[in-house]
């Protein structure tokens, strides 16, 4: 008995075209993950929180991360560039120029800079200028550019700005380390930075940029908190919350210390 078949009957040429189309879709599906999924990075810092106690002499921070869908075959292929920037809490700084008046050095002209990061570090796989052009670096805020926001960011810094950069660099509060970031495998990378003992407390932001051929492929942001702890925190809090009490306490301690020193070490 013939089954009640009501299927669509197709002619031979149509059916072969359909098979071809199906095969093409299958091929696309196979190729797609490699083709459409772009590289992304994920990163983190070794410490999310840095507590400053009496033995604090600075801190070593490791920034590490991975490139998802990395296309480079090995760690040494140099296909990608990584730039890591770390920025401390903002402050207002004044730069003064010393001038000679009748043989004597005095403070002359000055320029104030608002919202300058108290700490700034840029770590990278290669020198910044080689990785990308100046326009790219200033557009993404990678350069340490202490200047008014209205100023033309592309212009080279003037003498006051350069002095600020130099002096910050001397205090190790402005660091550029061109070969501090290394790939450990085709996707894993890490960079190390030293925070000196004179860092300001507050929120530090870390940004990681993945770059290929001078173009930004992916970016990742993190935050880190630097704060005082223990007796360091208690003293700083007392000094700012109750300055008169703190001052009086300092004098009382000094007087007590003087009397104690006299009784213990009195000679003659």
């Amino acid at each position, binding site marked *: 008995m013939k089954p009640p078949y009501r299927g669509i009957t197709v002619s031979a040429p149509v059916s072969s075209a359909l098979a071809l189309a199906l095969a093409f879709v299958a091929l696309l599906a196979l190729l797609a993950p490699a083709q459409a999924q772009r590289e992304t990075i994920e990163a983190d810092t070794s410490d999310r929180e840095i507590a*400053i106690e009496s033995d604090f002499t600075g801190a070593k921070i490791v920034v590490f991360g991975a490139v998802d869908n990395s296309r480079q075959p090995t760690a040494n292929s140099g296909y990608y560039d990584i730039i890591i920037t770390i920025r401390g809490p903002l402050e207002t700084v004044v*730069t003064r120029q010393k001038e000679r008046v009748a043989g004597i050095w005095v403070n002359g002209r000055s320029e104030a800079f608002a919202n300058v990061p108290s700490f700034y570090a840029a770590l990278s796989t290669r020198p910044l200028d080689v990785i990308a052009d100046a326009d790219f670096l200033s557009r993404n805020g990678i350069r340490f550019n202490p200047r008014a926001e209205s100023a033309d960011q592309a212009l080279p810094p003037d003498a006051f700005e350069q*002095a600020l950069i130099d002096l910050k660099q001397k205090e190790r509060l402005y660091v550029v380390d061109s070969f501090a970031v290394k790939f450990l495998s085709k996707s894993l990378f890490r960079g190390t930075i030293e925070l000196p003992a004179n860092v300001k407390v507050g929120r530090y932001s870390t940004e990681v940029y993945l770059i290929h051929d001078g173009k930004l492929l992916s970016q990742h942001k993190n935050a880190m908190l630097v704060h005082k702890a223990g007796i360091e925190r208690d003293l700083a809090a007392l*000094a700012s919350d109750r300055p008169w009490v703190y001052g009086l306490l300092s004098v009382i301690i000094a007087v007590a210390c003087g009397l*104690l*020193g006299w009784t213990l070490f009195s000679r003659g």
Partner: protein
Amino acid sequence: MQIYLPIAETSVNIFTMFGMGTAVGFLSGMFGIGGGFLITPLLMLMGIPTAVAVATGANQVVASSVSGTMSQWRRGNVDIKMGTVLLAGGVVGAFLGVQAVRLLKETGQIDLTIALLYSVFLSSIGIIMLVESLGAMNRARSGKPASARRPGQHSWVHGLPLKLRFQRSKLYISAIPPFLIGLSVGLLSGMLGVGGGFIMVPAMLYILRMPTKVVIGTSLFQIIFVAGLTTIFHAAANQAVDLILALVLMVGGVIGAQFGASAGQKLRGEHLRALLALLVLGVCVRLMVDLFAPPQHPFSIDILSAGA
């Protein structure tokens, strides 16, 4: 061994700071000066921010002056009455000095004016003291009486009214000159942020003609109050006193002051004055170098405030 300072917000070597405190305390106990003019630049040299160096230095001066005063007081070398008169003038002077700074700041170049006045002042005091003490030493060697005080010799100082008897200093003089000396030293302190012991001491020696040993004790006595007020004022206005740093300096300072006091006791008055003269001239030379030598960097930076 490094220790983190919560107010200065940096880390320093505890032994270096202790050593600095001891050395300055020694000089303080020996000469009757506070030593703020020595400790402040030393701290700045070690990377301590200026405001913290000034305020914390003042706090350490309190401790070493207490230590030094006690040991001088034990020997009967503190003229509390004279110290009080000097202090009264000093408080008025310090207040006027702070006002003067405000006025001068508006005209600009205050730093220059002060530094110049200061070095002229210091070099003349230093040279006069050195010449006088060397002369006294010569006279002592040739057998003549070596006394800087010439009792019976009267100057304008002795003709003024409001006479008081200062027993410890063996003086019967008007209260006006010590008050005025206190006032002018206080004026300088208010302007320069230093205690002014090294100006006060020569003034007591040469204008008031007090005996060298009493000068040291009395100077230290009044410095306790000047430095104490300075500390409280700096803590209140700038939150700049670092107690951890102060404590390390103080421990060194009070020990140093004791050794300094007994070392000073063994020296003759004119030798002591000659050494102080050299110290004053040394400070003066340092100031001159700062003024005239080309700076290490043609610019300087200063943090005004934390940004938004």
